[in-house]
């Protein structure tokens, strides 16, 4: 069984790598950015939230 921690780590990694060709388009523009660029930037800023959640699960803070 894959642990919840591993899943939480894998989601942003997959979103930033294998998922990118699936969202590789300009429209819809978000905050003026092409969609694919918005996707990557948004996941970049979401990844710390996932890591923080993993830390909580590990009872580190």
């Amino acid at each position, binding site marked *: 069984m894959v642990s919840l921690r591993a899943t939480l780590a894998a989601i942003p990694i997959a979103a930033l*790598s294998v998922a*990118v*060709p699936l969202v590789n388009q300009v429209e819809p523009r978000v905050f003026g950015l*092409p969609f694919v660029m918005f996707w990557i930037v948004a*996941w970049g800023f979401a990844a*710390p939230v996932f*890591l923080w959640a*993993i830390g909580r699960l590990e009872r580190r803070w």
Partner: protein
Amino acid sequence: MSGAAIALTIVVAVVAGTIAFGLWSVRSIPKDPVQYIVGGRSFGTILLWVLLAGEIYTSFTFLGMAGWAYGRGAPAYYIFAYGVVGYIVGYFLLPAIARVGKERGLLTAPDFFVERFGSRALGVGVAICQFVLLVPYVTLQLSGLQHILQIAGYGAYDATAAVGIAFLFVALFVFTTGLRGTAWASVIKDVLVLGAVLFAGIAIPIQFFGSHATLIDQVLRRHPGFLTLRPGTAPNGAIWYVTTVLFTGVGFFMGPQSFNAAYSARSENTLRRNAIFLPIYAGVVLLLVFFAGLSALLIVPGLTGPNADQSFLLVVQRYYPPWVIGFVAAAGALAALIPASALLLAAASLFAKNVLGEFGIATTDASRTLATRVLVLIVAGAAVVLWILQPRTLVELLLIYYNGVAQFAPATIATFVWRRITVWGAAAGMGAGLILAVVLSNANLPLWGINPGFVAMAVNAVVLVVVSLLTAKIKEPATASS
């Protein structure tokens, strides 16, 4: 005073001031190798933050991201994405490395392999490979510094001598203060870099285009398809993007200087907190540099090759007063010199401990520190000589560095997650990966768009597993706490 004189005076004053600040903040000169090489394992969140940010985001990231945005567009997204993947991997890997380091008193990256596999011969091999990979990476920083100084000097003079002198001072600075001085100097560097990119990434687009959305509109109108990846197997296309992000992300913290940084942490949670918050800072910096590169594409079109890397600096130089380019160039100069100082220290310390030490030279604490200090100067000299002899092949050397250091990742990760790994498996995997990385980086095979380093790492991992299973009876791996 001419523009060049004003700009260069600012660069010199900032660099000299930063070095002085680093010297002042260290106060005592360390003789103990633990103090000198890994800062006494005492760095808290902030010092570790600037140290890690300083080592990873070098002048090449600074200029390279802008150059990629300018010259290629969408493929530059990978620089943003692989760092985030790197921090996610680092969240797990850095504390694990730090724990082994603290429990076993490790000082260098090769020490880790000696400890995990119980083989000093493996340590010597890793040390020599890492040393050979680090020297050209130091050389690359010299080249970055040269580009920056030429822009700050308005192209009016040859920066070679200035680069040599600046580098001599940085080598003497590392010689004196060790890792702690580098970390404190990074504080100033990071503040200046942040200021420079806030200006370049916010002020320039707004001043020239009104808003960032208008900037993107204009780029899309003049260069349709520029901000989406080309499909499938095209050069820098979708397959290239996916394999490059995964491969460089896994290899992100595999440089020997990152092991030293992990050992220097006061606690494991210090490293975890950094893995969470650093990507936010890095993301903002890279995003702004990307906008600066796109702005330059519209303002000063037509640059190619290394000139594309300087594109946004050229915009600053042409359209803003000399003191502005002075401060931006000073930030860029520190982004070359401070990471170079950490690289010098990593290369010198691993050669002193894992090569000279294994042959019975400089084995006491005091002599080991002295040997590392002398090697700092020797490595710095070697990097300058290499830079003067072959400045043209640097991009290939950089590829070998990135593709090469990442080959230490499979064995490093396997020691924590796969107990059946053997020293033979690790050595065979790394050897196969390194050779393939060097060959493929220069062979220019198409590989269906796949990053050559990714291929090398995959072969590395397969060889590691197969040889480990075949040699399982010969030697059990050293299983430190995991």
